[in-house]
Structure formats: structure tokens, C-alpha cells
């Protein structure tokens, strides 16, 4: 069975360090998908998430820092303020909620990050095959 295509938008701070820990141990948290490093998840708007789905992503994960570690407070708050809008657009489009993961990780939470992504990839399930 083909693996689902996952796009991970990851903040360059806390979750990135968690990813680096995983890589040092020879593991890839994002499975066969692709990871896009961003200055802050506040830079990930509806446009990027929707475009990822349009380009054929079966699931999109947006991984940020816990609030106490965030270096870009306003950006992160803006992201979370628009999150309900994004979920609502996806729901109207018929893209199920389980195909979007929003999570935050400390740098030392490499294992937790890997487990979360594995669960997410498993929940996304079979690829939709849609691409325009």
C-alpha cells in the first residue's frame, strides 16, 4: 500500500531541534513526506495549507513551539486566531479534520513528536490520489 503524502510545516525553533534529535538517531519523523521549515507557524496561513492539499497532500501537520518558548508571540497568536477559519474552510471543502494536525513540541520531545506523527500518518490512512 502506498504511504500517504504528508506535508509538515515546522517552526525552525523548538520542533526543529526535536527533529534534529530524531535525525541524529537515523529516524525520519515525517515518514515519506516533506518537511517545510518556517520562521514561525504564524507564517503558515490558510493559503499554504490549502495549496498543500491542492498539490496532493493527504495530510498537513503544523508543528510549533509551546507558548512559553515562542519567539514570535504575535505571529503565533495570529495563527491560532485564524485556525478556526482554516478548519471551517476545510470542513466546507469536505476535507476531514483528521487530515490536519496542529501540535507543539519542546526541543527534548523527539520521541513524542515521532509518535504523534506516526499516529497522524496512520489516521490519515490511504492516499486520496487527488492532485491538480
Amino acid at each position: 500500500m502506498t504511504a500517504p503524502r504528508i506535508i509538515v510545516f515546522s517552526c525552525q525553533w523548538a520542533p526543529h531541534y526535536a527533529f534534529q534529535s530524531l535525525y541524529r538517531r537515523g529516524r525520519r519523523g515525517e515518514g515519506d513526506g516533506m518537511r517545510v521549515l518556517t520562521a514561525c507557524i504564524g507564517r503558515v496561513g490558510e493559503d499554504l495549507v490549502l495549496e498543500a492539499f491542492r498539490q496532493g497532500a493527504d495530510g498537513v501537520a503544523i508543528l510549533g513551539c509551546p507558548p512559553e518558548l515562542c519567539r514570535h508571540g504575535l505571529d503565533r497568536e495570529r495563527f491560532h486566531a485564524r485556525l478556526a477559519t482554516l478548519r471551517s474552510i476545510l470542513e466546507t471543502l469536505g476535507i476531514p479534520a483528521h487530515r490536519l494536525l496542529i501540535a507543539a513540541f519542546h526541543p527534548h520531545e523527539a520521541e513524542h513528536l515521532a509518535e504523534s506523527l506516526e499516529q497522524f500518518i496512520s489516521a490519515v490512512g490511504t492516499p486520496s490520489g487527488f492532485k491538480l
Partner: protein
Amino acid sequence: MSQAPAPIDRQSTPEQVLRRGLAELARTNGLRRCYDCGKCTSVCPVNLGGRLYSPRLLGQAALQNPGPALQSALWDCLTCGACREICPVGVDFPGFVRDARALLPGDAVARECSHGGALQTIQRLTADPARRQDRMRWVPEGATWTREGETLLFTGSAPYYDRYFDYLGIESSAAAAAALRIMNRLDIAPVLLEQERSSGHDLLYAGDGEGFRRLAHLNVDAMRAAGVKRVVTTCAESYHVLAFHYRRAVPDFSIDVEHFLPFLERTLAGRDIAFGAVPGRVTYHDPCRLGRMSGVVDPPRRLLARIPGLELAEMRHHGLKALCCGTSAWVRCGATNKAIQIARLDEAAATGSALLATACPKCVIHLRCAQADLPTGPRKDLRCLDITELLAQSLVPETKAVSSG
């Protein structure tokens, strides 16, 4: 726009291909007839909004030097049709711009579309034939509609605008809900398509002819499956492409298309339906696609005139000379566009009206967006809404009031 792809030309450079394509579009849209009178520049809202912009000079550049400057300028055009309306020799500059955008190199949509291209992306996502949307939450409780029948009420992208522009308090589908209530009052239970797609207007005008064609085919297939013989819509842009461009995209498309306002006027003729009073003063903003580009200018005014107590006050630019709301197809919205929107709000406020009615969800969104940036005052206090909501308040007694009078 909708022709079959041309054979691959391996002998010419991309610049030569672009030059030939623009020359052909210049021919089909009458640009060679231009005799430099300059009237187009004098009415162009982009030029009036503070940016040096001349359709006449751009047309010449397209024929002589289609370089980066011209390619960029093509995205500044609002395609509002003011230049075409005044042109003494019938140059169709908006038509030229619409089709020329499809020829430009690179992923222009990604670069030039406002909101990061999200609204075009939503439309493309709906082009998946397997997609199962959940877009019917706008239907009022107790309203009557069917899945099969002759008359379709087309709602286009309104449910998506409700979600995307929630920060502006936008309820674009309120116009569709109002139309549905009015149709029910007139004993019509229209067809609603649960898997309707966007009309594709924005993709067509953003240079994505293939995306437009895909949406047009999906919509027409759904209409045929439901037995639809007539499409009615409250959206000016949906009306424009359904009536004038679907036949180019789907050659055997033969379903009648009517905007809701002429449809309502025709349906009311000879029937004894009383209009309820809506006291106050209103001004009407003609959407470019409905007024200048489709010729529907009088029906909204005649309908407003039938509402007791409601006084219509015209803006300085109205009817075929109406000023654009500042942006079209979600393309390149910036300071000049804001200046145009504020100029339009100034014109509306000068009428002394408390209400600005229009017939296009995007005009409402653009004007409300401009209002959000303004300090308090008459132009910020204007209530911008769809004319169908006003008509529903008058025609359907149980409708919640949308105006304070």
C-alpha cells in the same frame, strides 16, 4: 481561453511565442483599432486611484514590447470595463487583459493573487470530481428547495466567502438565502446543488483557463443531472461567466441563465405581491460584471423603486459609468485599490444614504474591507449589503430586518 492547446512550437523562443500570442489577442480584441484618443485613460479607476495607468499605452506596449513592465501592468487592470464602455472604436481591453494573463510565463497566480492565492486555491480544490463538500449550512430553516427541477438557484463561492472573511463579519450567502425566501414566497422551490462548484470566474480572470474549464464542466454536468433548464444567481460574476463564458468552455451548454433581479422582475409581473415598507435612503452600487459588462442596470433600480418608503439616491458615478469596487478576481489588491474603494465609499456617503446596496458578494467584501481601515464617519457607518437582502425584507414579512432605515 477555451481553445484546444496549440501544438508545441520547438522553433520559437518563449518571448516569440508570447509576442505572437499577444498580437493575436490584440487582433481579436480590437486593440489595433485604437486611434489614441486617450478616453480610456481618463476613466480608468486605476489611473484615477493615483497610479499612472493607461490602457491605450499598454495596448501599444503589448504590440511593440511585451516585456516585464507590460506583463506586470496587466495584473493592475481591474477588468472593470470602464475603458471599453467609453471607447469610441470598441476596443475590448478587459477581454485582452483576461486572455493575456493566461499567456504570461511562470506561476503568475502564485505571485499576483491577493490572500496568497487562497481563494483561487479553494476553487481549484473544488475541481476534484470526488470532492464531497459541506456547503449547505446557509439554507434557512423551513425553506423549500429540491434536488431536481427546472430552475436552479446558483450560489457559487458564497459559502466559502462566509468562512474566509469571517473576520469582516461577511455573510455572502445571506443573499442566496434571501433569494430562496423570495422564491418560496413566489411559490418557487428552486433546485440547490449540494456539490455545486464555484463558477470559475476568478480562475478565468486570473489566467487559469484550464481551471475555469474544469469547474464549468463539473457545474454543467451537475445541472444536467438535476434536469435544470434555467439558472438564476444573485452573484454578478457568476452570472457574467455563466451567461457569456460557459458556452466557450462547454460548447453544447444550452441552459438559460438569468440574474436574480431581472428574474424577479419578470416573475413579479402580473402578480399581486405587495412590497412591505423599508423606510430610509439607499444608494445602489452597480457591479461591473452586472452593469457595464452584462447590461443589467435598470432592473435593480426599478425593484428598489417599488419598496414603499425607500428612497434611491444615485452616486455621482452610476449605471454604465459606475466606479469599480476596486479589485477583481482577488488579484493584486494594494494601496491604489484601497484608494478606489474609499473614493467609492465617499461617493456613497455623499448621497446621505445609510445603506449601500449592490448585487455582488465581492463588492460587499471589498467595500467592507476598506471600511474596516477607516476612522469613524459617514463612509464607515454605511451599511453595505446585497440588494436581495433588502428585497427579502420588503417581500417576505417574516425576514429579519437588515436595515435600520
